[in-house]
């Protein structure tokens, strides 16, 4: 609040990122995203992740809709959705989401409905976890920016 916590916040951010990398929630691709962020697009990571969440939310909703249908049989469509999700997840470096999506996809390729339901659950869980972590990360980032912006008259 007084602008003295910048270092601490940065340390917190680094710690959080490290733990996320450690857990395998994120991978190097996320660093690529961070590299792409520069002065011309200062909120690039935030924007991309936000769009990712918007899109993924839609996809997950559709997946749930599809899977909840009793007479459901359209595994191909599930596969398409999952491809999307896998693609975007790997693009932002959300490794764990990507991996569980891949598992989900292989279940869908085998037309395995219980597997798909289980897969969806796991994907949703991972997705929410990622979302929480990202939320936390951005919150820290925002605090850090606020703190970094504090200037005292000399």
């Amino acid at each position, binding site marked *: *609040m*007084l602008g*003295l*916590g910048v270092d*601490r916040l940065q340390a917190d951010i680094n710690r959080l990122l490290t733990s996320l990398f450690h857990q395998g929630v994120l991978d*190097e*691709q996320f660093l*690529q*995203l961070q*590299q*792409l962020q*520069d002065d*011309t*697009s200062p909120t*690039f990571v935030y*924007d*991309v992740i936000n*769009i*990712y969440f918007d*899109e993924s*939310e*839609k996809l997950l*909703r*559709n997946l*749930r*809709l*599809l899977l*909840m*249908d*009793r007479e*459901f049989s*359209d595994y*191909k*469509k599930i596969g*398409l959705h999952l*491809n*999307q999700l*896998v*693609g*975007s997840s*790997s*693009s*932002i*470096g959300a490794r764990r989401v990507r991996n569980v999506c*891949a598992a989900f996809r292989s279940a869908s390729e085998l037309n395995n409905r219980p597997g798909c339901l289980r897969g969806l*659950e796991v994907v*949703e*869980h991972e997705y*929410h*976890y990622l979302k*929480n972590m990202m*939320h*936390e990360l*951005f*919150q820290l980032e*925002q*605090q850090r920016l*606020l703190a970094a912006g504090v200037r005292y008259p000399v």
Partner: protein
Amino acid sequence: MVCEMETDQIEEMDVEVLSSMWPEDVGTEADKQFNVEKSAGDLDMLKEVDIAEKRTMADLKRLPELMNSTHQGSSQLTNLVKQWEYMQDHAVRLLREELKILTRQREEAEAKEQKIIEEHNFESQEPENVPVLDETSDLFRRFRQKKRDKLVDSKTIEIDEEFDTVAYWKQKALSLEKMLEASTERERRLIEKLNESLKTMESHSAPVEELTQNLKRAEGFLHFILQNAPIVMGHQDKDLRYLFIYNKFPSLREQDILGKTDVEIFKGGGVKESEDFKREVLEKGKASKREITFETDLFGSKTFLIYVEPVYNKAGEKIGINYMGMEVTDQVIKREKMAKLREDNAVRKAMESELTKTIHITEETMRAKQMLATMSHEIRSPLSGVVGMAEILSTTKLDKEQRQLLNVMISSGDLVLQLINDILDLSKVESGVMKLEATKFRPREVVKHVLQTAAASLKKDLTLEGNIADEVPIEVVGDVLRIRQILTNLISNAIKFTHEGKVGIKLRVISEPSFASDNVLNEDAEEQNGLIETSVWIRCDVYDTGIGIPENALPCLFKKYMQASADHARKYGGTGLGLAICKQLVELMGGQLTVTSQVNAGSTFTFILPYKVATSDDHSDDQDEFSDMVDHQPEPDDTTEGYFQFKPLLGSIYSNGGPVMGNNFLPHKVMLTSPLKLINGFITDSSNITGQSETVQVENGCYMDESRLETRSAHCPEPGHQYENGNGRCPSKETESCSSSQASSEGGPLEMDSELTVSSHREEEKTETDLQETSKPKILLVEDNKINIMVAKSMMKQLGYTIDIANNGVEAITAVERSSYDLVLMDVCMPVMDGLKATRLIRSYEESGNWNAAIEAGIDVKTLENEQVCVRSTNRLPIIAMTANTLAESSEECFANGMDSFISKPVTLQKLKECLQKYLH
């Protein structure tokens, strides 16, 4: 005195005869002995001592007097005298010893001589004519011997000569004459000797002079030391009049000081103090020190360290004080500076630690908040899993009891979710993370929706009404989700505390309130979104006829976790977060939330918010996001409707409390008096279904769910549909879902929509870049994933390229056909047409020069029949596949389909760079 002492000493010394030679330093030891002993001696001789003094100011007459009368004075003199006396004693002692030795030697020599004389006595008849004897003692001895010899001689002479003859007498006279001569000679020598010894006596007999010398030395020593010391010394009598003063730098003459007191001499600060201090010392009889700062005309501001000791006379009476002062002004200033610095330092340190503490507390608080938010998140995710699964479970076949249990489960879960959402919202608002969205919405619909939702879960005999003034615009721009949240919160609050009567919402336009001028920022933010419309202030009253709020509870009403009273909290439940969130949200949007209330008559919560008035042609990207709210009421008459009312059915089961199961009740507790197509639709739907008793529970659960979802509708805009589909009881929805699954075989209607909007967007960009970027290589990215597009685009930007986007194979072919590209990055797995097929078609065009293959594949012929195509077909367009490394996307397959290379996903900057370098240069 001295003589007496001497004799005393001699007696003492006689005892110590054996220790003949004393070492020189023994004297100092003796000195010390004397120093310790402070006996008052006879000091009369000091009267003759003249203290030759030039520099100091001293009353020379009084000083000796003082010296005589005081202990200090007398003891010092005594010391001097003792010292001198001792030195004398020492000298005498040494002389005496020497004398003794000499005497002994002489006696020995005499004894020897006697012997010799006795031996030769008879042989030497002649009178001895040895004329002179050097030593007096010899002379004396010889004289005696001569005398004796003479007697013998004369006898012998007289015997030798004939008695009474002339010769005899002649001889006798001659010898007598000789004897007389010798005697005279002896006498003269003795007198000489006497004179000599008198002289030496004289030189030794002046102790006074030596004392004077000593005193002079002592004085010289004192002078030497005190010469440049900033010291003032003095003696004052009982009345504190100066008798003696020594001052290195006298600014006053002797007569100005002596005989006067401090007060008489100086004027100014500190003088009185020093006088008092001296008096105090005099009274107490104890020497002490003090620092006194003088502020006098005479020598300005100076600080002296003053030492004062009382002086007693021999009788032990106080006769005055000795006073010594040293100027320590500089030291005091330095010391004060140091003290001040130290004090400053301490203060600063204290402040620092205070600040650190504050920071620490703040950080802790923030961390706690953070943790709360995180925790809430952590709880929410699994909880939403639980609730979601329970909801799914409720769509399966269950018996009554199971369903009942499940409903309890869901509603409890919803409650917890709501609570967590509240906490999250609050922490979001507080931490400033919450972002407001500017979207177009219809206030009437929002009000109606909120009331509908409230009515759906209403368990009381209440009338819900909405009243919107005609001048309220049909469409305004604001953050509809937040506004709904506020309204829902306030309404549910009102319903909670109202047992009969009505609860309602009133909307009307007001002029700009006074507090609004401060909120420029908010408007700026909205203007940035490209909305230049006029703004309008709308006042929204949420009123009820409930229990009201006592006056004293109003101030803490909007505080977190506070309810009007503990009783209420127990009776009505709730977290007490709702109003706090509402207030924060309203303030975030630049408005104001107020409340007026009367106990037992009801309360009115009023919030005033600014909105932009939307123009009809304004195109908003976000429109689809809240289309569920807008599109539910497509009827034109609905948009201008200004009054709604929802009444519960009389005799509702819920007014009695328990969830009674009954076959005769309609599934809905709400009677609709206004055109409410949606709910009507539900009624018709569910009335078609047999097994009413079940439906009550199902629909109930469904409604509750809807209300919950509405409060967090940001995530789930289409909650209702899901369960209706799952139920399989809603024929119309059923068909829709069927058709959607049919459509999905070609890519899915949902995707199609979003893709089309995206692609139309990109098309515009494309034409722009066409004009600008003629020199730069043209790159086409074929990719369906928004994220991938964003990332790739940003990477390209960093590498210095701009790219065109196609969302699927068909678009890619269209783009390639329309303009020439230097490179195509092709995603393999895409809806509508995948990358492999698109590549195949492009290659076949390059080979054949026509798009027949594409036309065969079903792509619009007209756009493709373009003559320019043939010209470009000579060059092979590099197409690089982007694969996700799955089995379906093997590299062999890529090459087999005519691709030149591939990049494995996810694309990194490095890979992209290498690829571009390879194919663009």
